[in-house]
Every structure is written in structure tokens, then in C-alpha cells.
């Protein structure tokens, strides 16, 4: 039977419209309910690219009553809690320290940065005039990773097209121009997000993959690739297994990493931070500087160690100058037992981090007039 052109194209257009509508409507309340953090089976490592709408769903559905203050955690694997099992992750301790007036949500990502994932949640809440404090981490020489180097760049474009980001002309210019004139690494997600903004395919198929069955093979999940993502609990090493992995990296390599941090040019870092972080977000941000474990620092020559400390303090001052509400070096006095490797914390380190940050967060909440 020969197909008729008009009904065929009509069906095609109608089909896309319906699918796009579904994409805009579907939500996974289960993801929000069970959410602790975006663990490996539901993040980019397993070819699952969370969307800005999924981030919004997590914020909006994770509690029945809205908290008095949202505490959004963003940044790298250090704040993600790598080195701590999900039931003992540091953000649980932070929630305990802060109490029920606060809601802590951990959007920090492995290999993430404070301007490529968690900031979306914080900016969305600021746009909605809701009380939010953003907790993010920086290393001693940089804060934001350039967008083309980010593993999560897709979601920034997605959030920008959905209107979830604060207006900030330097960043808006970058996000609008790269689709046509930017580097290849940014052109692809930028163009993809233009299509997705209209057709919502990422939202729809992410939902199907999470709730029913995943449709792409991934070498990390291997034979389990086609199971629904919701069926993957976060399975990571236990506290004992983490302990056995402690400081397993080559010492010279780690020391080399510490020494290499001198080569970074602050001007470039400062420029990227200015471009990617709107001042309104900086004004509610508590930045904590990741500190290397004494296990390695104590192996440096005294001059190298002093230079490291000087860089860390200089980083604090520079971030303060850029308008960050608070900059702290929370891990300054941690011991080598609080770390699992160069920068990642074990449970005791996470607990200490929560105890140190909680009073500052409470102070900020009062100063920002979120709480009396």
C-alpha cells in the first residue's frame, strides 16, 4: 500500500508534538524520594545524563513541606562524598547538625565543579525567591572548571534554555554564541539543547530509562545495562573496604599533583569564575577550599609546604574579593585518618566537615534574613 504524503507528515508532526508534551510532563517522584546523590549508575559515567527538569523535580518533591532554608551542595567528588558510603555520607551529618528548618540536597558530582550542576538548583531557587545557601568546594588554585572541560556541560545548556539560570550577561553570551561559533566540545551540547528545548527527548527517554528499562549499553554497567536505572541502588565499597583502599596511590604521583598546582594562572581562573558564576549566586555561596591530606603534605619540603599554605590563603582572599559570602578552609586541621587519598574524606572527615560548616551556614541563614 502506498502511503499518502499529507497524513504521513501530519502523523509525524503530531507524534513529535505528543512525545514532546509527554517529555515536558513526566517526572520520577521515586527518584526524588530515594535521592541521596547522583551516584555512578545515574550519572554521566553510566551514560545517564540527568536533566535540569530532574534536578527541579528533586528539589520540589523531596519533602512534603518546604523547608525554611535550602542548603544546596554542589561541586566536586569531595563534597559528593566519594570515600563515604551513601548511608554515612557527610551531607546526612550536615542535615542532622542543621535540623529540620533546613533541607540539605547533595548535587555535587564526581569530577564536577561548582558551576556545572549543583548551581542550577541554587539558581532556580534564587529565581523563585526561595531561601537558599549554596555550599561548594574549590581547590587551592581554581574554583570553576571551564565549560568545555566539564563532564556536565550538557545540563548547563539545558537549564539555560529552560530558564532555570539567573540572568548573567557574560555567561548568557557564552551560552548563546557557542552553538554557532564555539569549540566542538560545546557546539554539540549547545545545538542538542536547542532541539531538546523544543522536543524534550532527554526528559522523556531519561524517564523511561529510569522507570522501566534503559536502552543503551554502557561498559560501566555491562550486562546490567538494560535494567531500569531505578533498580540500581548505590553500591559502593563499605567503610572497611574504603579503609583498605586508603592511600593506595603512588606517593610521588600525589606529590607531583600538589606541586603542579602552582602552574595555574589565577587571572584565567578568575575570569572563568566571573563569567560562569552570577554575583547573586556568589552572595549566597559558602565556598570551602579542598585541602590536601597531611599524609602527603607532611612529605613536602618545608618551603614547598609553606608555598602550598600561601596559595591556599591567597585562594581564600581571591574568592572573598570576588564576592563569595563565605570562604573557609574547613579541612585545614584534619588528620591523615580523615582522608582516603589526596583530597577525599572518609566518614570521620565527612563528619568533621559537617560539624565545621553547620555553624557558618546557620550564621549565613540569619544574615541573609532567612531565619531570625
Amino acid at each position: 500500500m502506498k502511503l499518502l504524503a499529507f497524513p504521513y507528515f501530519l502523523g509525524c508532526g503530531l507524534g513529535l508534538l505528543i512525545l514532546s508534551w509527554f517529555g515536558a510532563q513526566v517526572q520520577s517522584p521515586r527518584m526524588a524520594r530515594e535521592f541521596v546523590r547522583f551516584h555512578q549508575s545515574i550519572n554521566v559515567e553510566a551514560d545517564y545524563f540527568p536533566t535540569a527538569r530532574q534536578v527541579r523535580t528533586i528539589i520540589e518533591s523531596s519533602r512534603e513541606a518546604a523547608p525554611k532554608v535550602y542548603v544546596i551542595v554542589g561541586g566536586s567528588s569531595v563534597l559528593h562524598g566519594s570515600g563515604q558510603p551513601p548511608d554515612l555520607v557527610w551531607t546526612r551529618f550536615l542535615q542532622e547538625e542543621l535540623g529540620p528548618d533546613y533541607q540539605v540536597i547533595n548535587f555535587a558530582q564526581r569530577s564536577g565543579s561548582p558551576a556545572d550542576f549543583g548551581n542550577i538548583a541554587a539558581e532556580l531557587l534564587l529565581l523563585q525567591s526561595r531561601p537558599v545557601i549554596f555550599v561548594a568546594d574549590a581547590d587551592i588554585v581554581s574554583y570553576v572548571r571551564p565549560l568545555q572541560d566539564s563532564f556536565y556541560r550538557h545540563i548547563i545548556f539545558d537549564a539555560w534554555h529552560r530558564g532555570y539560570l539567573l540572568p548573567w550577561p557574560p555567561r548568557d553570551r557564552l551560552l548563546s554564541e557557542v552553538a554557532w561559533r564555539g569549540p566542538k566540545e560545546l557546539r554539540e551540547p549547545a545545538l542538542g539543547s536547542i532541539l531538546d528545548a523544543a522536543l524534550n527527548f532527554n526528559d522523556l527517554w531519561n524517564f523511561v530509562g529510569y522507570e522501566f528499562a534503559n536502552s543503551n549499553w554502557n561498559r560501566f554497567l555491562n550486562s546490567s545495562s538494560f535494567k531500569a536505572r531505578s533498580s540500581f541502588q548505590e553500591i559502593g565499597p563499605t567503610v572497611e573496604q574504603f579503609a583498605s583502599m586508603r592511600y593506595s596511590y603512588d606517593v610521588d604521583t600525589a606529590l607531583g599533583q600538589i606541586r603542579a598546582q602552582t602552574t595555574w594562572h589565577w587571572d584565567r581562573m578568575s575570569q572563568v569564575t566571573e563569567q560562569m558564576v552570577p554575583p547573586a549566586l556568589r552572595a549566597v555561596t559558602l565556598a570551602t577550599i579542598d585541602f590536601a591530606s597531611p599524609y602527603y603534605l607532611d612529605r613536602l619540603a618545608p618551603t614547598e609546604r609553606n608555598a602550598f599554605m600561601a596559595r591556599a590563603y591567597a585562594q581564600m582572599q581571591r574568592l572573598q574579593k570576588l564576592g563569595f559570602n563565605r570562604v573557609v578552609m574547613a579541612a585545614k586541621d584534619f588528620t591523615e585518618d580523615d582522608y582516603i587519598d589526596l583530597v577525599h574524606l572518609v566518614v570521620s572527615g565527612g563528619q568533621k566537615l559537617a560539624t565545621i560548616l553547620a555553624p557558618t551556614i546557620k550564621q549565613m541563614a540569619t544574615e541573609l534574613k532567612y531565619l531570625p
Partner: protein
Amino acid sequence: MTAFMNASRWIVSMGAGIATALVMHYMLYRISIPIKPFIYVAF
């Protein structure tokens, strides 16, 4: 009979269009997933 045939052709053509839309929509999702694997870091 002709009217029935015409209606069937309409329905089949429209169904084929909807099926194409479904495939297209899914393909857009798949091609947006980078082929090159992402990070496989220890932590």
C-alpha cells in the same frame, strides 16, 4: 469500498508518520549521548 480504502490509507499513513516521529524522537536522544565514554575515575 473506495471510501474504506481511502480511510485505511489515511490511517496507515498517519500511523507510519507517528512511528517515524517515535523513532526520530528516540534517535535524537541517543545521538545526544556522547560515544566517547566519560570519566572512569577511582572516586
